[in-house]
């Protein structure tokens, strides 16, 4: 309960409370010490009071004796009056004495004094009466008795006074001694309380400043750039507690912000990397193409010149052939940039198949089924021709029967399916696996193909379509033909 209250206090309240508590303790101890020393002093003052009162008693007795003697000498009414007054005073004083039998020496002596004094007062009364009655003989003899008794009472008082003085001196000595002790004890207690107070202050201020210290250390760490610090504990609801909470939030916010920044940058760099890869693959394809076709410009011009010559000589088939060949080579010259339309790709395949048919005397039966609406779809260049080339080279080149190649381009849902089918040598599943994983692609390509391998086609399609393009190879076995199917997203075109 107390602890909770303390935790919820503000810094100012805590310091004030601390000050008040320690001050109160000191003040209380001081007050108590002051009170006890005061009491002690009073007792010291009272020590000899019993001696003083015995002296008074002695004085009172002396007054009775003196006034009685006075009256005996003068018989004046003044003396009479004085006698009765002093007698009454003395009686009053006697009333304060002890009258019981006790084993306390002082008190029993008081009792004796009381008894003797009563006898003395009776005697003095008788003397006064005798004087009044002028009974000279009687009052003279009684007076000597009274005188004797007076001396005896004085001896008693004197002895008691002595005894009391002895006792009182002893008490006084003890008191003075204990006063000295009290002084010492007081100093010790004060010192102890002082030490306690210092301890309390040290502990409380530590309690107050400890979170501040932790906060400062954490802030230093953050300033050095280390954001990987633990959340600071918050036990108290004072100003320091509030600042600590704010600090914790700040560190968390900074961390979140930095993380977001890092993710954004990472994404950007990924994009850049993809572009670079795309370019590098294209360059690779182009290089290989150029290596294969040597100088397309030269060939193209040469072939054009050949076509014009054939036209002048009226050799229409030769002209057609040369035009197709020149068209084929021109494709690469013209399509310097990477993006082409699907229609252009199909025309390149047409050119290629025509050339092959002239070369191999119409051995290849090529059929195509192209959805004309898809002709304007943008695709990376050089994706169809390598497929057809593969179909010719590995599919139908060495077969005994008539070779057929079918190209189908159609739309399926959100995708465009491009299929190149041949009825050639077919492929084993292992072979298909190898081709798709790209492990044998390049070595086999060296001899017969123009060098743009299947693997290259897939990678470029994936880069272009952000991994949404797909290549599949289907074959039912050896000599049962092969179908290569490319699936590319259609929506991209619209975007």
């Amino acid at each position, binding site marked *: 309960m107390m602890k909770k209250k303390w935790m919820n206090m503000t810094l100012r309240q805590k310091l004030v409370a601390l000050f008040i508590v320690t001050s109160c*303790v000191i003040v*209380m*101890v001081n007050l*108590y*010490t002051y009170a*006890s020393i005061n*009491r*002690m002093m009073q*007792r010291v003052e009272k020590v000899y009071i019993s001696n003083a009162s015995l002296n008074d008693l002695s004085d009172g007795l002396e007054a009775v004796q003196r006034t009685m003697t006075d009256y005996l000498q003068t018989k004046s009414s003044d003396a009479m009056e004085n006698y009765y007054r002093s007698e009454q005073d003395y009686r009053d004083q006697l009333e304060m004495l002890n009258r*019981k*039998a*006790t*084993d*306390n*020496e002082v*008190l*029993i*002596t008081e*009792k*004796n*004094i*009381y*008894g*003797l004094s*009563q*006898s*003395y007062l009776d005697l003095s009364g008788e003397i006064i009466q005798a004087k009044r009655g002028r009974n000279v003989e009687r009052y003279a003899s009684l007076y000597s008795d009274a005188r004797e*008794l007076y001396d*005896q009472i004085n*001896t*008693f008082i*004197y*002895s008691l006074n*002595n*005894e009391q003085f002895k006792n009182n001196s002893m*008490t006084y000595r*003890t008191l003075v001694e*204990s006063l000295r*002790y*009290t002084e010492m*004890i*007081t100093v010790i*207690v004060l010192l*102890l*309380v002082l*030490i*306690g107070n210092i*301890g*309390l202050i040290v*502990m409380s201020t530590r309690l107050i400043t400890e979170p501040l210290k932790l906060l400062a250390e954490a802030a230093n760490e953050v300033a050095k750039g280390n954001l990987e610090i633990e959340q600071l504990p918050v036990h108290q609801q004072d100003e320091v507690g509030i600042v600590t909470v704010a600090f914790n939030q700040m560190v968390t916010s900074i961390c979140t912000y930095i993380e977001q920044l890092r993710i954004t940058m990472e994404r950007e760099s990924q994009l850049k990397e993809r572009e670079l890869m795309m370019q590098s693959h294209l360059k690779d394809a182009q290089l290989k193409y150029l290596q294969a076709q040597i100088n397309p410009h030269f060939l193209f011009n040469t072939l054009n010149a050949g076509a014009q010559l054939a036209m002048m000589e009226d050799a229409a088939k030769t002209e057609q052939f040369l035009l197709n060949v020149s068209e084929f080579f021109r494709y690469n010259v013209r399509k310097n940039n990477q993006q082409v339309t699907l229609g252009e790709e199909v025309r390149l395949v047409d050119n290629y198949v025509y050339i092959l048919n002239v070369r191999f005397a119409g051995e290849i039966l090529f059929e195509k089924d192209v959805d004309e609406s898809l002709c304007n779809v943008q695709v990376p260049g050089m994706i169809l021709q390598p497929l057809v080339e593969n179909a010719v080279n590995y599919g139908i080149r060495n077969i005994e029967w008539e070779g057929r190649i079918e190209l189908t381009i159609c739309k399926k849902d959100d995708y465009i399916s491009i299929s190149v089918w041949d009825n050639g040598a077919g492929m084993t599943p292992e072979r298909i696996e190898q081709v798709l994983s790209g492990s044998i692609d390049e070595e086999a390509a060296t001899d017969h193909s123009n060098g743009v391998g299947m693997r290259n086609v897939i990678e470029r399609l994936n880069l272009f379509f952000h991994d949404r393009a797909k290549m599949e190879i289907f074959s039912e076995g050896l000599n049962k033909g092969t179908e290569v199917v490319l699936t590319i997203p259609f929506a991209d075109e619209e975007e």
Partner: protein
Amino acid sequence: MKRKRIAIFLLVAVFILAPVALMLYGRLIYGGTSKEIEQMTTYGRHYVMITGEEDSGLWDAVYESARAEGEKRGIYVERFGENLAVKYSSYQLVKMAVEASVDGIIVNGDESEELVGCIDEAVDAGIPVATVLNDCSGSKRQCLIGANNYNIGQEYGKQIRQILDDADDNSMKKVLVLTENNSGDTSGNLILLGIRESLEHEIKVTHEVSVDAAVQVDNSDSFGAEEYIRDVFLDEKQIPDILVCLSGVYTQCAYQAAVDYNKVGVVQLLGYFDSPQILDALAKNILTVTIAPDTMEMGRLCVEALDEYRQTGYTNGYTAVNVQMITPAEAKQRLAREMQE
């Protein structure tokens, strides 16, 4: 965390313990002086005992016993005049006690007229008086508590006879009896009589004895006794064969003188009272024998007698106190017992 706990504990301890210690200390100081009055007991009656200055050892013992008996009966017995600055004589003290209206007086009597007058005054004032050890026979005192002096004399006589029987020769032996010279005190005379009669009846035939009865120590000043006893030892002609001391102080003086003048064994000392010093001398065989009244009984009987008188109006006029004869062997036993206690 554990150190912190300890620190907090220590702090609390200091804060709480310091004031508590201070308060306890304060109470210790203030409680000190009021104790005396708290311990005081109040009694119903107040008796006084007046003994005189001599033989304080014996009277201390009697007083202690009387006081103890008084406590049992709700009576405070005061040793009257003991602490006064002026030393009063017994009769003066009796008179003062009467003036102070005490309830009873125990006094070591003598035969002086003053004392008789004072005791009579007390009795007339309705205060019972008991004399103890020594009587004040002419007075109206209610009772005497004391040893039978004649019997004591007989006892001494027996001892003297024993000594004479043990002696080898039958030459004339001199016996000196030191009695107190209290005015008109008969106790010494009674003892003397007891000794004489005892000797005359029994050993007249066999031994020649002179009993110097007349010698009385002049006791008028307090130091005369000692001087007289030294004189006895110094005078070779007068030196007795047997010295009988009839008080504790004489006994002490006599054995000291015997030691100082190398007369131990030469003079046979018969002592009185059984104070530790006398028992010690007896154990060392400086004294032949000592006779002691039973002080415990004496004190007790005083209070008993006064009380009886107060209650019934009557009491025995004389109550005898037992007397014991203590030999060196018994003295040794008693000293050993006291050592153990």
